């Protein structure tokens, strides 16, 4: 009887669904503008993904609270810029004053995010590491820390997003394949790319970077060879925090009303998805994964006709990649990174 009930409801799908479309026309029309906008988002994902990927490479720990490291950076950025007179209206500043303000705010955000990342490592993870706690304990601690930080901000700042911060008025710069490129997109993409190249070079070319790779590859041997493991771990969290702080600048530039207590959470999951997509533990993988995810999300949004699909697509990609190729596109290889 129940089965017949369940089967007798063909009308569910028969009603022309207006909640999903396969709008190939819009997809083709907006293909290039979606691509460029997606790359901008992807660059931001990639910056945050670096934090996940490096910590994972060194500790095999999913630092679930990294999204909150990011949001702390965003709040630091918000307060700095607000103190500098930024608000919901674009300020009238000349280029040098503007760049000076933004770089200052970015530095403050990076410091704040770096500080909270190290604090997190010291307070939450180190005691567990001392005790050689199992992985699950680390993950639960990370989740707890994520929520503690998120809702501490909630208790302090309330549920609403902070007023929008407009840094400069967007201007179209040029056109490619009919898609208008805005100056903001170039700033974000180029600056994020430069930061990532710097970190990549740092890990691959410097002494400290070599130590970092050594610990990722084999912590015991690395310790025997005289690498200070704790220091490497601290350094890893610090770099991740710095990049998250920098990402905060670009994210707020792109989404001016994005500074909110839970504003980092979904972004963090997407960044983690990006890291997994590229191959967690792999710095270049984070970049590729971030950019891909940004673009795919945008395509999904246009194709299916609702902004919410961006997140669905991101999660489906995450689940799919983990199932089909858990080591990601480029493989998990912080330790094996080519020199």
């Amino acid at each position: 009887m129940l089965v017949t009930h369940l089967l007798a409801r063909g009308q569910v799908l028969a009603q022309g669904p207006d909640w999903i479309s396969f709008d190939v026309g819009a997809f083709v029309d907006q293909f290039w503008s979606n691509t460029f906008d997606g790359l901008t988002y992807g660059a931001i994902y990639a910056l945050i993904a670096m934090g996940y990927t490096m910590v994972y490479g060194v500790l095999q720990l999913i630092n679930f609270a990294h999204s909150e490291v990011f949001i702390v950076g965003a709040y630091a950025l918000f307060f700095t810029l607000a103190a500098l007179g930024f608000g919901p209206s674009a300020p009238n500043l000349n280029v040098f004053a503007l760049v000076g303000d933004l770089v200052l705010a970015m530095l403050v955000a990076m410091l704040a995010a770096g500080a909270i990342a190290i604090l997190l490592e010291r307070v939450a993870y180190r005691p567990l590491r001392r005790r050689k706690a199992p992985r699950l304990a680390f993950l639960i601690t990370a989740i707890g820390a994520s929520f503690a930080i998120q809702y501490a901000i909630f208790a302090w700042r309330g549920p609403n997003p902070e007023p929008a911060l407009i840094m400069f008025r967007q201007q179209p710069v040029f056109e490619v394949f009919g898609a208008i490129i805005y100056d903001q997109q170039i700033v974000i993409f180029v600056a994020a790319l430069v930061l990532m190249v710097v970190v990549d070079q740092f890990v691959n070319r410097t002494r400290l970077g070599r130590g970092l790779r050594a610990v990722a590859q084999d912590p015991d041997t690395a310790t025997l060879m005289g690498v200070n493991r704790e220091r490497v771990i601290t350094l890893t969290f610090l770099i991740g925090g710095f990049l998250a702080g920098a990402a905060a600048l670009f994210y707020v530039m792109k989404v001016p009303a994005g500074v909110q207590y839970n504003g980092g959470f979904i972004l963090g999951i997407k960044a983690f998805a990006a890291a997994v997509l590229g191959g967690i533990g792999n710095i270049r993988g984070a970049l590729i994964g971030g950019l891909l995810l940004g673009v795919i999300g945008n395509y999904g949004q246009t194709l299916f006709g609702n902004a919410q699909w961006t997140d669905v697509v991101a999660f489906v990609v995450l689940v799919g990649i983990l199932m089909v190729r858990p080591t990601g596109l480029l493989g998990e290889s912080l330790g094996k990174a080519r020199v």
Partner: protein
Amino acid sequence: MTTTQNPSPAATPSSGGDRRLLGGLRDRWNGLPRAQQWLWLIPLVVLIYALPVLNPPLLTTEPGTNFPIALFDAARFALLAIGLNVVVGQAGLLDLGYVGFFAVGAYVAAMLTSPDSVLTTIPYLWTLPIAMIVTMLAGLLLGGPTLRLRGDYLAIVTLGFGEIIRLLATIVGPLKGQVGFQGVGRPPGTDADGQPLFANSDGTTWYWLVVTITIAILLLVGNLERSRVGRAWIAIREDEDAAQIMGVPTVRFKLWAFVIGAAIGGLSGALFAGQVGFVNNQKFDVPTSVLFLAAVVLGGSGNKVGVIVGAFLVSYIPNRFIELAGYKYLIFGVALIVLMAFRPQGLLGARQRLLAYGRQAYQRLVGKPEQLASDNPMTAENGGDR
């Protein structure tokens, strides 16, 4: 029977501080014959049933929240926690998307009974088994491909699953997003005044229903634990590779845990939908999932009584101290960190014991009731940190 019990403290291996406090009580409890245990449980169960009527002054959540409804909430949480405990505590699989199963159950009940639904409506009670079946299928669908993954990846995939369910509820037209379903059904029956027995505003009857179901589920899960399945779960939790080598079909038993946990989550969701009478997409987010996890970890994952206590605390505290309600995620987030650092086994940790024929074996071998060793997925001294 030589019942000269002299439980020498030295005999109990100590790895937690609870031995002195709760341990004595627990050892004595475990020493009791099963029949006596049952006898002791009867007044406790009666008390639990009587709670909403007694409305004891200090315990009551009024005037902030209606007490029977707060109790219903606690019972619903307990049922959820028992289900999640099968997954997290027994089999050691960290499931962050448990709220997804809860949501599926709630939506099944809503879509099959609410007049707002495009589906044909059926009597409410039928939706409970259907919700369980549908969530089991959902569990199979998610677990089948993903349970081969490493533990932490699994956590993230399940988190993604939970979010996908919520987002689909938002996007997919017939699921009605934030508008939601009103007038979700209720069990039949009216009282003397012609009012429905299971009114949305009456937590008492709903509470009794959920407590009854919870007891039934507890018995079921308890039996399962003592069976071959339960032993396989523990083997997997302790060391998956070793279990596999010893011939335990790990994926199959992990899937079992996943599916059974999912079904209980779905059942709880369907009950929730019935009591509230309204389902929309707003309460199935990740924070809720983490709250469920907090209930299990707080009480002591792997320990059924523990998780019920944990569930009660997690749902009761925000209802009792309304002023704390806004901080509940903060409080339980901090609680998770503190617990993992200082008391990873939770308030009432699980302990290792012989599961099948345990009593007889102990009696025969050592001539006294079992001595329990500490054991919990969170306290294992190995694995970890590669």
